[in-house]
């Protein structure tokens, strides 16, 4: 994918091919600027590929939609709407009736553990709670794929761990396909079924790591030998890519 203005183009992503199976949790892992967010935005429909195409359930992606719901890193909840108003937004857009909207929104809020906060405004919530609202808001539309752009990146380490476990427990219930962008190796390996390790810009998949750790996964798993083996493999590659990114772009 190329972006450019005034004759200067930046090739953000090159030769990216990834096929996911339904219900799979895939992590896109890579250093900053490697194009992983660009890939996510392409699946979301915010940008179109310069060459090639994105296909979701046999349909080519041309524009954003609730079937490919996105969870952003921060500041994406509507400040003027209550938690309930935010979560039921997608349903409102589809013309779902008020009563039905509310009951579904309530259900998903309880799934993410925010019952009782329906009438709070986003600014009254902590970062972790806001992200939970964001997740509920995307999931209530039963998306075909849930896109997550470093959703826990702005949270403190403790909250991040809690949120990762919460995400897995929620995902166990809804089982959508998830595309999760992160630069955190532990996070990627803990959450995903497969981790796509990306090169620096222009981004390509360097390695597709199968994470065959059994589910449900508890936080302690990151200290097990099996995890360490995977981590060693990934870490070496990520470090190499980071170093390369620092020293200059690929030809």
């Amino acid at each position: 994918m190329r972006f450019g203005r005034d004759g200067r183009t930046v090739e953000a992503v090159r030769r990216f091919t990834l096929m996911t199976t339904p219900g799979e949790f895939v992590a896109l892992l890579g250093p900053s600027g490697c194009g992983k967010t660009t890939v996510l935005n392409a699946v979301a429909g915010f940008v179109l590929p310069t060459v090639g195409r994105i296909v979701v359930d046999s349909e080519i992606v041309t524009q954003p939609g609730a079937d490919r719901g996105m969870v952003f890193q921060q500041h994406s909840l509507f400040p003027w709407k209550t938690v309930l108003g935010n979560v039921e937004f997608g349903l409102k857009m589809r013309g779902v009736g008020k009563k039905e909207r509310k009951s579904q929104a309530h259900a998903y809020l309880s799934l993410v553990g925010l019952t009782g906060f329906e009438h709070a405004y986003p600014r009254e919530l902590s970062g972790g709670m806001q992200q939970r609202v964001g997740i509920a808001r995307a999931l209530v539309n039963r998306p075909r794929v849930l896109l997550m752009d470093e959703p826990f990146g702005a949270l403190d380490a403790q909250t991040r761990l809690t949120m990762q476990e919460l995400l897995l427990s929620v995902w166990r219930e809804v089982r959508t396909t998830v595309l999760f962008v992160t630069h955190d190796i532990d996070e990627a390996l803990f959450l995903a079924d497969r981790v796509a390790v990306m090169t620096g810009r222009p981004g390509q998949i360097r390695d597709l790591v199968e994470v065959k750790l059994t589910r449900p996964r508890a936080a302690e798993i990151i200290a097990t030998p099996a995890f360490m083996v995977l981590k060693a493999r990934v870490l070496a590659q990520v470090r190499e890519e980071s170093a390369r990114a620092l020293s200059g772009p690929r030809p």
Partner: protein
Amino acid sequence: MATAPNVGMVPLVGAPAAQAEAPALLRLAGWRRPALRVLSVGLFFAAWHVATTWDVDLYVRFQNIPTPAQVLEEAVALFGSAAFYVHILASLERIWLGFAIATTLGVGMGLLIGWFRFAEDTLFPPIELFRPIPAVAWVPLSIMLWPTERSSIVFITTLGAFFPIVLNTIHGVEGIDRQLVRAATSLGAGRVAIFREVVIPGALPSIVTGLSVGMGVSWLCLISAEMISGQFGIGYFTWVAYGIVKYSQIVVGMLVIGVLGMLSSALIRLVGARCMPWLPRRVKDAT
């Protein structure tokens, strides 16, 4: 910093923040602060009384300025007369009519200009062209343009309020976080829905600010316009009082203008705050 084991350390954590490094003598507490403020206002009235009763002339001339007592007497008389209320009502009507028109035009155009490039290219240049001209400078032209005195004065108040309103609305729309728009589209919102659900609420705080400022400017324009041309209105009344040598009425007029202006602005702010329940009540409440 090495600490000796037996030395007691006095913690500085609990020290209260000092407001100013004033000597102990001037730091007051409790009832003394309100008392000081009352004293300050009282001194002002005392100075006014002295300057006017003894016809002080210190380059600034107080000979013809009415005393506080005279003003109070006149105020009581005026508020007992029906004619005074006619003036007040005339001004209020012109203000609120002009303001309503300015709000409709200003917010409407502001939303369009802020959101649609085509609107910006077509509507914004004329606005920028006229903006530097103060509304009051329009009075002579306004008298020629409009058939009735009322319509020409309402035109001036509309003009005064319009520019702050439209500019603040544009600013509000342009300041909307584009991430919120993206979030809305990824939740299935179409273009109309985005305008209704994101653009308007997102711009609302700026719009309310614009309305508040617009109201203040409106009053300014109204009073000036009434002084220059008119037969009714509190501005007219105040100006005419000078001509008919009823100086106490000038001061009463001024005070009434001040109070009405303040109440109008406060009303706008109150209604605005009601429309935006998601904002903290006061900046101090926000963490």
